[in-house]
């Protein structure tokens, strides 16, 4: 049986999540301070493998 949704919606919900998980948002905001010059993001796309799979 689904629970009835008594939580705030939309912006209120987002505000509540930002407050409740403040340390998470701080950690995510800190990412831009890492020394990332010359570092490309890890991506999974592998054209060679994909072409072998016929995709």
């Amino acid at each position, binding site marked *: 049986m689904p629970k009835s949704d008594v939580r705030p919606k939309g912006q209120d919900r*987002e505000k509540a999540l930002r407050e409740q998980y403040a340390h998470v948002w701080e950690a995510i905001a800190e*990412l831009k301070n890492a020394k990332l010059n010359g*570092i490309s993001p890890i991506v999974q796309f592998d054209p060679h493998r994909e072409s072998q799979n016929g995709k």
Partner: protein
Amino acid sequence: MESENDWSETFSGLNDQVAAVAQGQLRAEALCRAYLAKIEKFDDELQAFTQINDRALEQARELDRKIARGEPVGRLAGAFIAVKDNYISPELECTVGTGSTAWNSPGGGANSKCVELLRAEDAIVIGLTRMHALAWGNVTSPTKNPWDTGFVPGGSSGGSGAAVAAGLCSAALGSDTGGSVRMPASMCGVCGFKPTFGAVDSTGIVPHSWSLDHPGPLARSVEDLLLMNSVMAEDPSVLGEPADDRTLSGTAVGLIGNHFSERLAPDVELAWNGAIDTLTGNGASTAKYEVPALEFGLGAIFAIEVVSAATAFDQFVSAGRTGELPDDVRDLIDMGRMVPAVDYLHAERVRKLLFDEFSQVLAHTDVIATPTMPVTAWPIGEWTVDVGGKEENVLDASWRFTYPFNLTGLPAVTIPIGRDERGLPIGMQFVGRPGADMELLEFAKKVVCKTASIGNPGGYE
């Protein structure tokens, strides 16, 4: 073992069981009956299983007939495997910890390749184990820790950890996105292994975070992990010489000076220091290293995990069905839509930086050693723990030492090394080079031989 009340074999371990069954010293049916009887007796309280395979006994009898006819059997004949509720298999209803099969749709409908491989070696699935919903948490309510039923078993593979610890199965399957095999294994006092990312086929496991999810086994010994991983990774290189014949001489063990030595519970610190003494006392050398990018690890795993999980379950979010989930899981899924794309890509860049820094350490060492968790199991119903005098959210405290190896994809194994003042298990984690999974397990096997056993939780004999 022919008596219905003889449960001694349920604690003997996977390797011993399959050897006894293959040699005709133990009937698969007798072992199956023992497990089913134990599940019936203990699982009302433990709540480790969500579903029992009602064909297990019939499959065990068929296996016994096959052996009696002299037909060859697989390497797992006589093994009764408990499977986490996010592996899709033909005879059991996978609900991903939600109680509804609707939620397994991101799995694509394919059956689990891991389960197929185990069954091809004549393993029998005994049932599905309880998990924290959508593999997003470390409590696994209402499952209890067999060492003390007032405490959580960990998660998200908490049912698998509890089932192995209480001797309700030969071994179990879990999945590990931020520590979900290693944390319950550590908290329940058993061994758990997260292979190198991609070494084990995750087809047919309902995804949570595609680039962080790792299938992995939980078992009573490292030898049993080796056998399970050999089958799951389709790697025949298993079981070398007996571990107790070898020393740790010449093995270089890397210790990480930052992050992993910060904020440990006192009993964990004591056991950890004792374990390091055991390593060096048996010939291993240790050296300390720094991994500065760990400062950004928490932000990186959160950004990647919440975005990935929100994407995997997007149809349910869009349909407004997150109200069916526990509050903690629902929050994290909803947060996935709040992470800016720029921050997500920074997280993926941090992940590469972390991999490079750990690779530097592993260029100078054979393995890295860390405590598996800064804390032991906490009482059911509590959501914060005291770690070295500081109150921490249970998620933040518990996965701090495991998630870096989901970000980097490095293989990692946990073994029990002691118990805290309440008698709850403490684990130690070893991490290896990418692809060196069997070598890592062989090393852990040697360490276990030098470490005092913590025994079994009482009351399940």
